[in-house]
């Protein structure tokens, strides 16, 4: 496309402007985690590694991190298994109510988290189930399934429909076809969906707040609860930096995997 010089420059400026507005705050958080002062004072007068070296002594943060990892892992496992099976079923079989099922499966991502949260909390309480890690896992699984399902379904749709037929024609049983053809072609999307779902679960606050009992505190909740306490605030910036350092490579990996380096057309 031909673009004039002036519009090219202004488009470039706008792009950089937006990128800076989005990512500068993240850089500031990293810088602040080395700030010797207890407040968000700017510019930092002195730098220190004190917060970093003592972070493991903050027991509540350590505990919250562990809870978050446990929670995300469980929710992702459930989501990947159920989401992949669902995508598989909707791709390969036609049955009554198929469109409804597919719509209901992706609905939770569009529903406001607060609705999901309130609804689940009410249900759990009504039936007298204790709120705890299990109820949060169930809550997170609802939206994690959507991510896993969407990733796998998109991949299955791009796969040439007759590679499975070709495999069967060449003498492979149903299991061999899955093992040698279908699974290798879809596994990247399963992993990518799992990573994205993990990232989503890891920073979720709303559903967590409603479905967690008093005993459960996740990392985002810990950050929220300690944000206004001057003596813990530096640790919040350290934790935020750690979270970034973990999630950025994961996001990059997920993108690589779902793009799929090779053509899937089978032609």
């Amino acid at each position, binding site marked *: 496309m031909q673009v004039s010089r002036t519009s090219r420059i202004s488009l470039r400026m706008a792009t950089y402007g937006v990128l800076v507005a989005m990512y500068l705050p993240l850089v500031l958080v990293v810088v602040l985690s080395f700030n010797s002062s207890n407040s968000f004072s700017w510019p930092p007068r002195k730098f220190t590694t004190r917060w970093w070296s003592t972070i493991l002594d903050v027991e509540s943060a350590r505990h919250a991190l562990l809870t978050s990892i446990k929670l995300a892992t469980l929710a992702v496992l459930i989501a990947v298994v159920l989401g992949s099976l669902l995508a598989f079923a909707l791709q390969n079989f036609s049955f009554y109510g198929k469109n409804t099922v597919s719509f209901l499966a992706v609905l939770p991502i569009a529903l406001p988290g607060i609705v999901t949260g309130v609804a689940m909390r009410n249900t759990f309480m009504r039936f007298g189930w204790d709120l705890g890690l299990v109820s949060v896992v169930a809550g997170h699984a609802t939206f994690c399934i959507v991510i896993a399902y969407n990733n796998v379904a998109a991949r299955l749709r791009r796969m*040439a429909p007759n590679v499975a037929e070709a495999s*069967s024609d060449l003498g*492979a049983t149903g299991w061999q076809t899955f093992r040698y053809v279908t699974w290798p072609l879809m596994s990247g999307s399963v992993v990518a969906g799992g990573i994205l779902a993990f990232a989503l679960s890891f920073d979720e606050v709303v559903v967590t707040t409603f479905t967690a009992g008093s005993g459960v505190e996740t990392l985002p909740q810990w950050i929220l609860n300690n944000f206004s306490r001057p003596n813990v605030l530096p640790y919040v910036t350290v934790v935020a930096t750690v979270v970034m350092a973990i999630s950025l490579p994961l996001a990059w990996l997920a993108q690589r995997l779902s793009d799929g380096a090779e053509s899937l057309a*089978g032609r």
Partner: protein
Amino acid sequence: MTLEGVSKSYGAVTALHSVDLSMKAGEFFSILGPSGSGKTTVLRLIAGFELSDSGRVFIDQKDVTAKAPFERDVNTVFQDYALFPHMTVQQNVEYGLMVKKVGKVERAAGARAMLDVVRLGGFGDRKPGQLSGGQRQRVALARALVNKPKVLLLDEPLGALDLKLREEMQVELKAIQQRVGITFVYVTHDQGEALSMSDRVAVFNEGCIEQVGTPREIYEKPETSFVAQFVGTNNIFTADRAKALFGDALKATGSMVAIRPEQIRLSKTGMANGMSVRVIAVQYLGADTRIHVSVDKQTTVIGIGASEEYKGMLVGEDVWLTLNN
């Protein structure tokens, strides 16, 4: 390979009406028909991707009517090849042997030998995505043939190739078939392809067989007006109408008469037993030129002849028509 009274419906649509068909071992058999004629359904029933509503399928005297694709001794070359994109060419060709648990050394050798047959030796390490359309076509062929099936099914395998490559592959396919001696069942809508490659052809229309015969029988003695029309552009008349138009020049029997375009001769100079007709369209085809002429208000006749000879004919001109016998 035999089909006995095979029928198949998809919902309210009947794709095949009680079809009987039998093929001889080692023959190149084409199934020719327009799209929607049921020819691909026949193929899918033989392969086992679909099960027939009634009738039976025999391969090598064995009843395979209810068998799954992987239990049948047939292999398929798909229209869009359906190669496995995550495997190399070598792995693609080895696949059939691998799932049948043939030893590593043996299957590697088998695949290499078959790649040589399709002239792709040395391409084993490539991925399908790195090959041209014609090369992928030949990988698909090797992948099927390496299993030494009783019958090889080909579903419009040349459809995605350009004209030049298609003509080369026609010659090559025929040569490969003669070398390996396997029965080929070749589905196509291209009558030129069917006539030039086949030992026998079955012409399909609306789920029924119109005629089975050698290419020469199909072309020269069409049994139905559909066959006459579909195989070559024929001029078709009722016997009475033909008699009225062409008189005694026509030596034909039967209730319908088909006159092939190359039997029509057109000339600008008057001829003794000629009929005066008007040129309404001229299609230059290279070596040949096809000319549409109107005999009277209702009747258009199509003739074809050497471009050199028909050079001067223009739309709107009156010319003389005679028949070559």
